[in-house]
């Protein structure tokens, strides 16, 4: 157990001290504050809107930025050690490859949590002072962390392949573009091309290939009421909460298992 914690601690300190995390947290906080304070901008007045409006706007910010944050945190975790020459040194110590992988994963998830916590703390305080409830803010923080964790774990797995960091960065950004930006456009294109003839089962199965969509649905179903689902026209075509949880757990664990397997052959 000590080995996992030593690696996690090192990973956490190394990232916290490089200033990058603080910069990301501050940027995130600024965006989140603007969204919270100007949540009613589209109605022609500036002020804090109701819970639903603010959290819906914030969740959009989360779904664009947090996957990228996760990928950027994870993509050079093993590749960086390899390029610095510290991976062979680490492996010469009494530590196994899966202890390195899991230890790094724990440390990076903590970095992610701290970054998002710092990014969301000020907008949370603003929201609470305008009578909003803490439960949904906490749920937003946890859902954001889970979303980032999935993308971080995917990047960690990619990082175990013997590719250069620049290539891994390119692949990570490509993955973000495909799963976060282009997936929705492609999905709408598919619906238009098939004139909306796709069955609900096919639509539901398409969502399983994208963890970002799955987490968005989980958030909608757990943080908002049925009216939001109806407003979005998603009734009947999105997976249930239990299926979402199972799928997201698989998306969270599978890349970690694959990363540990890949590293064990190093």
């Amino acid at each position, binding site marked *: 157990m*000590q080995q996992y914690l*030593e690696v996690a601690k*090192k990973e956490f*300190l190394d990232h916290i*001290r490089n200033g990058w995390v603080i910069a990301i947290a501050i940027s995130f906080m600024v965006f989140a504050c603007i969204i919270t304070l100007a949540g009613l901008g589209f109605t022609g007045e500036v002020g804090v809107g109701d819970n639903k409006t603010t959290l819906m706007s914030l969740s959009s910010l989360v779904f664009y930025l947090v996957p990228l944050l996760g990928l950027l945190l994870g993509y050079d975790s093993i590749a960086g050690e390899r390029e610095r020459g510290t991976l062979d040194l680490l492996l010469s*110590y009494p530590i196994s490859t899966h202890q390195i992988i899991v230890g790094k994963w724990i440390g990076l998830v903590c970095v992610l949590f701290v970054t998002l916590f710092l990014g969301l703390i000020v907008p949370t305080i603003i929201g609470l002072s305008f009578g909003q409830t803490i439960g949904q803010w906490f749920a937003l923080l946890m859902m954001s962390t889970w979303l980032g964790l999935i993308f971080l774990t995917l990047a960690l797995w990619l990082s175990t392949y013997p590719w250069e960091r620049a290539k891994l960065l390119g692949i990570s950004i490509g993955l973000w573009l495909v799963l976060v930006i282009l997936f929705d456009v492609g999905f709408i294109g598919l619906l238009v091309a098939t004139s909306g003839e796709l069955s609900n089962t096919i639509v539901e199965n398409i969502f399983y290939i994208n963890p970002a969509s799955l987490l968005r649905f989980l958030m909608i179903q757990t943080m908002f009421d049925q009216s939001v689902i109806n407003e979005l026209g998603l009734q009947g075509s999105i997976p249930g909460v239990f299926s979402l949880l199972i799928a997201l757990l698989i998306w969270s664990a599978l890349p970690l298992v694959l990363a540990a397997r890949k590293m064990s052959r190093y």
Partner: protein
Amino acid sequence: MTQAILKIDGITRSFADHEVLKGVNLEVFPGQHVGIIGNNGQGKTTLMKILLGLLKPDSGSIIIQGETADFPRKTEQKRIFGYMPEAMSFYPNLSGRKTLQFFAGLKSLDKKSVDTVLEQVELAYAADEKVKTYSKGMKQRLGLAQALLGNPKLLLLDEPTNGLDPNGIRDFYFTLSKLQQQGVAILMASHLLAEMEPHLDVLAMLKDGEFKRTGGLQQLTETTRLKSIIRFTASKGKRYEQFVVNGEKIPASFDEYTHRYEILCSKHSKKDILNRLIEQVDDLDSLTISEPGLEELFHHIHES
């Protein structure tokens, strides 16, 4: 007889069709300083990785303190080694102390051990500065410090003095000699032949995936019959082309640029040649004798 701390027994290893190591054998005993020398691409890095348990050999075995090493390596066997890789950069945002605390934690050592190694490599003054502010020499010291954590019985050092200034090199070898006195064995790969020569007990010359020669420097120079070089200058500009010693003509080459003569001679004829030279060269100005060293031996073996 003392047991070898490390025995490399018939190690072979290939990558695709290329056989990098073709049956490597070597024994390292406590307190011994063994130098592995060889040009790039001769298999040094592959051998280091096999010793550390990062690569599995195709055949042969590594025996650590009389016990055949497993692959992957057991924790107890890893503790015997201290490894210093070539040109590593560590974690730029951690301080030297935090870096060492991390590595000490992996070996389940307390924080005192970190202070001890920092003192040993004389890096305590910069221990709390971030590693990214360190010079190359300071990073090398940090590399040695982490290798010394946990009092290893065998140090594996890969090009350890790269980037050290002359004082740093002197201090580095001084630290190594103290460790040797405590019974620590050192296996070191380096290209800096002249620098490592005075410190080595045993040389292992790696060429084409094999140790072509293994032994003490003196023993190897004698068995390879390397010649000594007598160099002299004459003040009056007289020219000397050869000296006849015991009926044999020994040529003297003259360097037009340095105005210096060179005579190659074997160990047995050296005294006679010197006597004849002093007799004949009445305008002798300066005289030096260079015995064959590691560099000459290295070139001889690699050219043969």
